[in-house]
């Protein structure tokens, strides 16, 4: 059977690289004695695919992986994993998905990044509106083709500013993977260019990953 799980990664684990996170998950599967399936061949590995990759420095509320295993109920799986995961990590939900479901890597195309800003004299709402009003938002690419300027505007779906007591949280919905991959550090660059300095940032994290179809955003857990 194939199973999809949504998990959270706490702030203490934000410095883990992608490979570290994969090892962590594999070790947890073994500690939890999950009946995972192994690949064939010379170097058998667990048939798990980490569908979303948290950038180093960010923690995450809703990340996803798929796993192939012998029969086990979703609730049993969750209980076993949650007792074996290190502090700060948690499986939020999980469910069985059909064998032919396209992989997370193929379908996740949007993400929601949050930036916590400390108390300041700026009108953050005005600044974010100004950013959205621009026809073109050019930054130096941080990913492939580092030399190139990249226009982020088509991939920014929305920016919301929420006051939270003493601080404000800016939430940015962007396109990821193909065709336009917007990196979290590129968004940070846009903020800096528009006057929100890095010194104001208290924290950043990823709120979620989505499948965007037209104007609708679906959770990867909503599989038919």
């Amino acid at each position, binding site marked *: 059977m194939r199973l999809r799980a949504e998990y959270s990664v706490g*702030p*203490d*684990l*934000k*410095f*883990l*690289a992608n*490979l*570290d996170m994969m*090892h*962590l998950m*594999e*070790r*947890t*599967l*073994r*500690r939890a004695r999950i009946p995972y399936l*192994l690949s064939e061949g*010379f*170097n*058998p*590995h*667990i048939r798990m695919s980490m569908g979303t990759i948290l950038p*180093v*420095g960010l923690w995450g509320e809703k990340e996803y992986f798929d796993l192939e295993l012998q029969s086990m109920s979703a609730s049993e799986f969750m209980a076993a994993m949650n007792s*074996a995961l*290190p*502090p*700060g990590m948690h499986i939020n939900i999980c469910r069985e998905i059909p064998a032919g479901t396209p992989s997370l890597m193929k379908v996740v195309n949007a993400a929601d990044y949050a930036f916590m800003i400390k108390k300041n004299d700026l009108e953050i709402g005005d600044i974010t509106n100004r950013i959205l009003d621009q026809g073109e938002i050019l930054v130096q690419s941080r990913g492939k083709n580092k030399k190139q300027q990249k226009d982020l505007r088509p991939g920014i779906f929305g920016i919301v500013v929420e006051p939270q007591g003493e601080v404000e949280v800016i939430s940015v919905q962007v396109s990821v993977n193909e065709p336009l991959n917007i990196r979290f550090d590129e968004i940070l660059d846009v903020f800096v260019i528009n006057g929100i300095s890095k010194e104001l940032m*208290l*924290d950043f994290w990823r709120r979620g990953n989505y499948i965007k179809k037209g104007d609708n955003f679906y959770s990867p857990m909503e599989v038919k």
Partner: protein
Amino acid sequence: MKDRLFRDILPLVSKPARYAGGELNMIKKDWEQSQMKMVFAFPDVYEIGMSHIGSKILYGLVNDKSRHLMERTFAPWPDMEELMREKEIPLYSLESFTPLNSFDVVGFSLQYELSITNVLNMLDLGGIPVWAKERQENDPLVIAGGPVVFNPEPFAEFFDAFLIGEGEELILEFLDCLQQNQELDRKSRLMKAASIEGVYIPSLYTVEYKQDKTIQIMRPECPEAPAKVSKRLVRDLDKSYFPEKPIVPYMEIVHDRAVLEVMRGCQRACRFCHAGTVYRPVREKSVEVLKRQAESQLHNTGYDEVSLASLSTLDYSGVNQLVKDLVKTYGERGVGVSLPSLRVDAFSIDLANEVQKVRKTTLTLAPEAGTQRLRDVINKNISEEDLFKAVEAAFGSGWNSVKLYFMMGLPTETEADLDGILELLTRVKSIGGRLSRRSVEVRASLACFVPKAHTPFQWRAQASIAELDEKRSYLKSRKIKNVKLSFHDSQTSMLEGVLARGDRKLAEVIYQAWQKGCKFDGWSEYFKFKQWMESFSDCQIDPAFYVERQRAYAELFPWDFIDTGINKSYLCEQNELASTGLPTPDCRQAGCVGCGICPGFEVNLDLKEEGQNALASRI
């Protein structure tokens, strides 16, 4: 402090997980409720320190089995150090983010002579005076243990105490003693500790030198300090503490796997080997205990590999049984078994094949020398025939990568011995060509021989940098097609040699070198040979005195006051046998060779699995 690190510092450094702590199975004890607060300091980066098995044992032992507390700290990489100094962040422990100078005891593990500059740097970053004599009442006691402290003298001025031998036998007694004497001043507490067997308090001894700079006499200044400090050792390894829930790092470390210590010590009596002498006698764990430890380690860590560690795992009497049982139990879950070193014979390969049912990696063999004559000199008791059989068996059963370890600069070595290395590699290559369907990879690593204290070669001169470089060019000029040679740095080996057989006078040189920016000396990209040589010359000390000098049997060595249990007369006899090229057999098969450890320390060779299998495997 933690918030500041996580927000302002760690995002700016390479591999921030090194400095974040919070790993699975970390033990964070209540500070106020704990008695002695000790931080275990490893003078190298996190991924090396966390791979060290002794640290895992001591960390578990102190935290699990006593009311004391032990946290961890590692050497920060230079990018992190720079930021820490700039932002005035002291070196801290990973459990509670407490600065080093708030602990009662800071205990360094000295695995390698050249890590001493990192020790000084870590003390300085932790807000602790680097010289022992400058520390005040409220400063921590700075102590050290590990293989290097069998000659602690070059480092004596930086430490308040050394723990000699196997730490799990000693650490709790030492901490208890400090706890019980809390009301005393620093010096009195150290004097109390001096009467514990295995504890060496360097400030309680004076050393006088002769005109020729060798030692006249070394004597204790007070009755509490013994004239001879005996190493401590575990008598029954089955009953010794072994952690059931070791820490699982988040980042990849050097030995990223569960580990079992199958035995301690080695009886092969290779004459160059430091560990083989100081960790005698051989003491094994039983297969049943090891299987239980494997289960708890794997269950509590989730690792996909378990490694069978020791100085010579293939000599463990239960190795066949253990490997078969582990592969049977864990193989189908995708959990592999690995052997860190292989003996050079066909039996090893059979067993390695068993192991590699799950995973196949490079085969590593250590002939050490290129000719039978020189192998007899160093007492590496393997024959060419064994070696080639092993290689044939390996290539014949699907391995296609072999790595061979050799040393250059061994006593009595000539050009013929270097030619021997090349001939041997050529033969290995051709066996591979004949037996393997794919093209084979043959690599050789050439280390520089460094004579070590307490070994039969402690009287020998070390080959000079010029000699070693000449040997290296000789080998390089006779390149064999498709065989890759890699060489250890001769300058690093020279410095290692100075510290390995050095005395107290070197303290100033070490201090100067650190002041000139030396750190991470074991890392070629940071090794600053020029600064070291300047420090020697500033202190008017000639390094050749320590390395290139042939010593007389009558000479009193800086490390002679440490009793490893091995008689000096035995070492001397071994050195003489080396000159005549006569081997010494393994005492497990040939009977006692008279090294002195068993009667002297009232211990026995402890072989747990002396059954049919073990006997058959040794024929």
